[in-house]
Structure formats: C-alpha cells, structure tokens
C-alpha cells in the first residue's frame, strides 16, 4: 500500500490544493502450465504476483505419473529395464546403466571390461547430448529464439546418429543389458566416436561464443535464482545445480563406481550459485566429458566379450538390498532395489534428481521478477517424466 501526494495549481484558486490518494495493490494468482512452452513439459505452478514481483510459487507435479515403480515390481529383473529409458529420456543410457548396475551388484554378476568401457563412453556422450539440449532449451527461455536451439540440435543430432549406428534407436536405446550389452557396437565405433568428438568440440566452442559473453544473456542470468550451498544441500539438490552453488560433489569422484577411477578430469564449480553459474558449470562439464571419452577410447580393449559368462536364464538374487546411485547429467540418479529371493524385485524406488532439484524452485523465485522465474525454472533443466516417474 502506497500513499502519494499530488499537487495541483489551479487557475482560480490562489492557494495550492493538496490531494491525498491511497493506491491499493491486489495480489494476483497466475496459473502457468500444465501445457506451457516455458515449463519444459507437463508442469504447473501457481504464482502469486504483486505487480511484477513473485510473492509465492506453488508447484504442482504428477501429470506424468505412470506408476513406474509399481510396474517394475510386477516385472522380472530384466523386464523393467526398458522402463528406464522412459524416465529420463534425455539421458536414457545413464538411467539404464544405473539399473543394470543395481541388478548386477544385487545378483553378483561381474561384467567384462569392454562392456564397461562402452557403457561409460555412451553414457558420457549422453551427458554431452543432454547438456546440449539444456543449452538449446535454456537459450530459448532467455530469448535466443531459434539460434541456440538449432545450433545445439545440430550437435545433438551428430551424437544421436552415433547412437543410432550403435543400437538402432535415437532416443529409447534399450541397449544395456543385465550382464553387459545387447550386441557388439558397430565396427567403426571408435573412429566414429572420435569424429563426433571433433565436431562436438567445435559445437561447444560455438555455443560458448554465442552465449557466454552476450550482454543480454548475462543480464538475464546473473544473480537470478541464487541458492547458497547450505540451502541447496538442504533441498537435496545434486548435479550441476549443486556444483554451481560451490559444492564440489560429484558421485563419479566421491563414491566412484564402474571404472571412473581410471581417468583424469576436473569438476567445475560455481561461485555465486546463480543461473549463470549453472550454465557455466554445464558448459565446462561438456568439455570434461569430451576429455573422459577421449581417454576411454584410448584405453578401451579392441576385442573381448561384451556379455558376462554363465548368466542365469532367470535372475533370482539372494535376499538383500542395494541403493545404487550414479551421476546423471541432472544429478544423482539412484535405484533402491530390494530382493526377496524371487524372480521379481520386491521394491524398486527410483531416486530422481529432478524431483529434488525442482522442489528447490520456490525459494529461488520468491521475491524475484516474474520473467526471472521462467529463467530460474529453465536453469533446473527438468525432465518431467523423471520427476513424476
């Protein structure tokens, strides 16, 4: 509520007249979504705005809830694998990998080294692909209508062509199997990967030149959606968002799995924890992933089995439980799996990074401008299929 004084000097009146007026502002609710281009999927939030300032934000999720955990519990251990592609469809290899690792650790299956390398290379490629997708979609959020999207999709397309050559599909790969891989990657896998890496490095530099130093881009992103390290940890935020807040937490290093201890790379972290830092962290992560893939391609054995020997036809792991977690492009993806000795898992819980990252939206957007709320939401890089599972 504001009080203003206006002064009029009338012609007839000799003395100035002071008029007092009171302006009352009313809070307004704005419904965003569930079908809205800025929500990156089927996501709805109700914003309470006072003028252009967001006073409150209530997110609503669940529009994509398909009961994946219940379905997985009613399928056998191998049957639920295809469902992992449908959770995080931008990083399907990474999700498949977590599931396979969980079942293998639960059943005590050792997988051959060559399969580990192929899995790691494809998953790191998928990380680059996912971050390219983020750059494109986020660029659209902050106002690069078209340019960022088409440039990054050009690079994404190269990686998808490689995936298609390996496994025959562009998005729903379903290529990893419990115990190894579905089949050998094609003959020229290493040469093709090297060629794609050369192209992708140029693409990363292009995106860097296009966005990083652009004045409008920086003005839209700097000091928007700021989250401190303590706040981020309390909200269970993981992945590039947590690292942008200055916490060097990366499961590939902190709880190393698979063969990540054989490579050297660096973990980029941010200083301020704002949207711009999240962008920079992802940009640098792409370069580091390219470095990891190059090292892995050099180390990879040229021949050898890709499937573990003596796999049982029907998996019946001993009763026990495992919480397998790995670093997905969006953060910590976990599979909590409980076996009761039968051929179906008793309990499957998917720990989705986006679920926890998205829950931190409210403190980011409250008391910010309405236009910044869209940028903050875009910087979380949500995949709603993974949030709702």
């Amino acid at each position, binding site marked *: 509520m504001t009080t203003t004084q206006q002064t009029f000097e009338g012609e007839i009146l000799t003395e100035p007249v002071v008029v007092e007026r009171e302006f009352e502002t009313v809070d307004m609710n704005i419904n965003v979504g569930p079908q809205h281009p800025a929500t990156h999927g089927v996501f709805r939030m109700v914003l309470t705005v006072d003028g252009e300032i967001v006073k409150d934000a209530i997110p609503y999720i*669940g529009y994509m809830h398909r*009961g994946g955990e219940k379905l997985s519990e009613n399928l056998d251990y191998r049957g639920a694998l295809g469902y992992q592609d449908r959770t995080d469809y931008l990083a399907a290899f990474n999700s498949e990998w977590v599931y396979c690792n969980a079942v293998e650790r639960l059943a005590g299956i050792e997988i051959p080294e060559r399969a580990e390398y192929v899995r790691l290379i494809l998953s790191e490629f998928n990380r680059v692909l996912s971050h390219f997708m983020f750059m494109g979609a986020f660029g659209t959020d902050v106002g690069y209508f078209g340019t960022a999207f088409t440039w990054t999709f050009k690079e994404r397309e190269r990686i998808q062509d490689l995936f298609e050559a390996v496994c025959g599909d562009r998005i729903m790969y379903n290529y990893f199997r419990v115990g190894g891989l579905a089949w050998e990657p094609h003959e020229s896998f290493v040469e093709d990967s090297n060629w794609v890496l050369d192209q992708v490095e140029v693409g990363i530099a292009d995106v860097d030149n296009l966005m990083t130093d652009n004045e409008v881009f920086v003005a839209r992103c700097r000091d928007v959606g700021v989250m401190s390290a303590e706040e981020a940890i309390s909200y269970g935020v993981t992945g590039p968002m947590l690292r942008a807040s200055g916490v060097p937490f990366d499961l590939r290093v902190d709880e190393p799995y698979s063969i990540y201890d054989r490579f050297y790379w660096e973990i980029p972290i941010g200083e301020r924890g704002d949207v711009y830092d999240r962008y920079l962290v992802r940009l640098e992560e792409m370069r580091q992933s390219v470095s990891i893939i190059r090292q892995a391609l050099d180390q990879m054995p040229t021949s050898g089995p890709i499937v573990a020997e003596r796999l049982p036809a029907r998996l019946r792991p001993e*009763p*026990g439980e495992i919480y397998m977690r790995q670093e997905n492009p969006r953060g910590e993806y976990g599979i909590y799996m409980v076996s009761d000795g039968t051929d179906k898992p008793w*309990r499957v819980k998917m720990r989705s990074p986006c679920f*926890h990252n998205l*829950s*931190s939206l409210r403190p980011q957007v409250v008391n910010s401008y309405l236009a910044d709320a869209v940028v903050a939401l875009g910087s979380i890089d949500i995949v709603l299929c993974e949030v709702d599972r």
Partner: protein
Amino acid sequence: MTTSSDDATTALQPPPGSIADVYRLVMPLIPFEAVVTKGGDVALTVAAEFLYEVIARARDDERLGMNLLRNLTAVDWVEQGLELVYHFYSIEHRHAATIKCRLPSEGAAVRSVAGLYATADWAERECREMFGIEFLGHPDPRNLLLDEDLDIHPLRKSHPLAPIEVEQGVDVEFFTKQFPPEEPVSPQEKAADADDAAAARPERKPDAELTEEEREAKRAEQAERVARARELAAQRRAERAAGAPPAGGPRAEGAPPPPRPEPAAATAAAPAAAAAAPVSDDRPPAPPPPELPTIPDAEEDPEGRAAAQAERVRIGRELAAARRAQLRGE
C-alpha cells in the same frame, strides 16, 4: 563403494570403524541394529520413538554431519508391517548411512523431518500418498503425484495392478455398463435349459443304423438342399450381370463402401439377408444423369472449350436446384 561386486556381504555385521560405530559413539543410549547391505552401505535400524532424534542429532553432530537426505522411501513387508528407509550422506566426510525404521501396517505415523531437511517436504508427501504413512507435523500434507482427492496407497502390496478407473472409483458406472455382471444361474435352471435344448434338437442316428427308407429320405433331402443352393447362386450371378450391387464378397477397388444395414433389420433377419436387402431410403430416387457436352481440346478450339465448360456448369446447377426442390417436396 567399489567396483567389485561383494555379494557375500548380505546381513553381515559392519566392520569395526564403520559409520555404525560413529553413530553408537554419538548416541550411546540408543540401540541400533546394524548390517551391511549388498551395495556396501551400512543400514541401521532404530525404533520409531528414536527415529527423529537419531536423524536430528546425526545432522547436527560434527562427527557425522549427515547434511544430505538423498532418498526417502518405504517398503511394504506385508505381514511384518512397513519399513521406512532414509538414505543420508555427508558431503564433508564423504560417508553414507541408511536409517531404517519398522512401522505397523495400519496407523503408521512418525514425526516429520521437513524442518530439518527441506527436501523431505516433497519426499514425505510422496511417501504418505504411496504408503499411507502419516508424517506428523508436516507443513503441507497434500497428495503430490496422485490426484488431490484420491485416498489410495498404490505402492502397498495389497493394492492390485488393476484397471485404474475401477481403483479410483471414478468410472465404476461406465465399467459396469461395458461389462455387466453375469446373473447367477442356479444348477437346476442350467439342467432344465440343457434338457430343453436336447428336446428341441431332432434325433439323429448314425448312418449304419438307418433303414433303407430313411436312407432314401436323407439322400433326397441332401439333393434338394444342393439344388436350392445352385439356384440361389445362379440368381446372384444374374443379378451381378444386370449391374445390381453385389450382396457380399470383396468390394471392387475404388468402389464406394456398401451401405450399412439398418440395425433393426440386422437383428431381425439373418446377416446375409440384411446385407442383400435394399437400403431403406425414404427419399425419392435421383433422376438419371443427363448427357453432358464433351469438352474439346484447349489448343484446337479454345472458345468451344470455354462454352462447353460453361454449359456443364449450368447443367450442374440446374440439376442441383431441381434435386433440392424435389427433396423439399415442391
């Protein structure tokens, strides 16, 4: 966690110096049951009354520093009740621990930790709707993933994998209409029906038992049936030659689809007869199409072509107007 699979660690006691010992050191009065899971994590089971205290003290204590609640879920062990599972991690000390708590199946309630970990807000909401565990003191205990007015707990083992409309109770009426429940038939009624059917059926003897006369009669009956079928086939052939629409069989390519039989006729008569019967159309039949002028080639006679086209359009309009008037009954 290491890369090698350590499947032999099921239900093993944690080794000395593990995170379980730190917990015991920090909270010496609280009883724990500690095991090592297959993933190499240490899982501690505590009683429900100590759960909040364990979590709060583990977060605030410097030696434990469990500041990341990475996962919160539950497991339904049907007869042994529910099991609440928290996965914690300390980013400073880089150690993980799993805290578990057994709860009864009905009326399970624990104190909410949403005040300690902000992420528990959504995680507890999901756990509450999926398993029916109440989190006391939760700031906003609405449904999260499910519909807001649904009061079901789908991840319980007692919840079947059934048509969702039935489970939700939103479309029971629709389903009962689609699949009406069969009325129960008593065994006496069933037997009576079977007797009636047997009585209605003419008695048939095997060929070897027939007398000469009966055999003759049967042969004559068969011959008559064959003759009738041949007659019908000839009639159909003649109809087809006269240009009548085929009664059945495959449609010629490009031909319009045959008219649908009226539902009443289809149920009253046999399907083949209904298809052969003419379509009931109370509208007067359209007059036969008139002779249209041929359109000459554009290069040879451009003026004649334009005139012929205009003539066709005029005829068409006249015909359409006449047909409209006829249908209106003028």
